[in-house]
């Protein structure tokens, strides 16, 4: 079997793992540790860094802009993760109810996955046009006689963050639907038969067989989409740049502004560390809640 931890084995393992490990430590872990370190200082990026204890972290909560960015990112998890998982389940069930030869099942599976591979900035630019005052949404509204509802959606204080959310749904559905439809294929067909014998319908089939069997896929889907929700810099930067009035700020963008617009590097670092802590906490709890029994 596999080599036990002899000296020879340690030597070989080091040879194979060290290059990757060193690059990872230098370019990911070291900067992260540096961010944690500087998060306790007042530093404008040029002068001397002054020890500030944990006050930057209090500022994260006290500063309306930073707090808003954190609230927004948590709201965006609903749009980037939960709603796509929900629709992904419906579309995967739809695909599995159709025969394997069904053209629309095959084609739609590929088509709705496409957004995953596109550069997010290009996606953001496209959607910005859709939401613009002359965009498709307003044209549709006036077409059906609801012209009075027309507005510049991304400039609307209340709606702008939901507009970003709609793009998040658009991005995530394909991934979720693909994962779940393949997961469904692996489910033992006899489980469904026994429900039918009991006289249960489609909904019983879904809640007592499909949903529990898909637990690993759902866990994976939520993990991936949450990571993308919490790092939504690209989309927001091109679509609204945080506006109007800071209503669509996300932590990534706020870190960037704190550092390069306000020259508050220490503060930017503590928001960055807060962001990574939220990400870890969320992923850990999702994986705990949905663990296999």
């Amino acid at each position: 079997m596999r080599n036990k931890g002899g000296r020879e084995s340690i030597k070989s393992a080091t040879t194979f793992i060290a290059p990757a490990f060193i690059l990872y430590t230098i370019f990911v872990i070291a900067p992260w540790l540096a961010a944690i370190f500087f998060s306790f200082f007042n530093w404008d990026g040029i002068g001397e860094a002054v020890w500030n204890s944990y006050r930057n972290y209090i500022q994260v909560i006290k500063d309306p802009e930073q707090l808003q960015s954190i609230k927004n990112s948590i709201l965006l998890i609903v749009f980037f993760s939960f709603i796509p998982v929900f629709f992904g389940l419906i579309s995967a069930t739809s695909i599995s109810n159709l025969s394997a030869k069904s053209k629309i099942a095959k084609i739609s599976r590929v088509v709705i996955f496409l957004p995953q591979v596109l550069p997010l900035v290009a996606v953001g630019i496209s959607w910005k046009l859709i939401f613009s005052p002359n965009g498709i949404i307003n044209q549709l509204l006036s077409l059906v006689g609801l012209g009075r509802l027309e507005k510049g959606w991304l400039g609307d204080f209340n709606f702008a963050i939901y507009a970003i959310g709609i793009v998040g749904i658009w991005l995530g559905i394909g991934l979720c639907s693909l994962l779940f439809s393949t997961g469904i294929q692996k489910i033992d067909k006899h489980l469904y038969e026994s429900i039918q014998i009991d006289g249960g319908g489609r909904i019983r089939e879904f809640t007592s067989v499909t949903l529990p069997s898909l637990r690993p896929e759902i866990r994976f889907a939520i993990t991936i989409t949450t990571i993308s929700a919490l790092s939504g810099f690209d989309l927001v930067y091109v679509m609204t740049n945080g506006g109007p009035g800071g209503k669509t700020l996300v932590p990534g963008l706020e870190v960037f502004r704190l550092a390069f617009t306000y020259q508050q590097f220490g503060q930017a670092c503590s928001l960055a560390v807060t962001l990574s802590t939220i990400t870890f906490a969320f992923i850990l709890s999702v994986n705990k809640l949905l663990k296999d029994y």
Partner: protein
Amino acid sequence: MKNISPKIFLFILSLYTVIPLIAVLNLSLQKPDALSVSFKISKHLYFGNYLNAWNIGNFHQLFWTSISITLIVVPVTTILAVCAGYGFYRFQFPHKKKIFNFLLLGMALPYEAIVIPLYYGLGSIGVLNTIWAVIFPLLGGFMPFGIYWIRSYFSTLPAEILEAATIDGANNRIQLTKILFPISKSAIFSLSIFYFIWSWNQFLLAMILIQDSTKRTVTTGLTAFVNQYSMDLPLMCAGTIIVILPSVVFFIIFQRHIISGVLQGAVK
């Protein structure tokens, strides 16, 4: 008859996916005075926007920068991840589990959380505003996923494959290159396709670490172009399509690998 509603649902979902892209494509083919994204497809398609966008936006340079980055990042990260994944799969050593978890930590760490120290760190070694400022962080940042991926793929292979080789006295290098590599080619290829997509689409690192406008990548170049020509919608849309198109073509060519790759990641 009972299959009608799933079909309608899937059709609407597909429409929702392609409409923004088709709208931009449509507008990119209008005369420069067009004002809005429209459903109406005009009879006279105007391709001049593409030529103008390509020249004004300096896209050949943007493409060249992005291609240079991916040409270095993709092969290096793929090879290193395969080696390290093999290391974790094949050998026992002290603290193995801890070291592996330490690597996994990086999968959940957003680039937003490390980009400011990177800005200073890379500045101090003098690579800021060069392609290396994006390449180095990606080399490190791509390791966790790849190692996890390769190790879990190797674990699905039957153990006998290597046992026979060990008895025959094949060394580690031969086991990896002559035995594991040929049977894992398709999984390794999927990994390199992911690496390609991620490095091609990378925006945040490129924007902050390469602020010199002559060294922009496709994504940061497009953003600057769009900000500058936001008044000329068809031109701006043509630029956007120029950036989207290669990804779409790439997806169509490699969709089987991409999709099977995503599914493999979900197994574990």
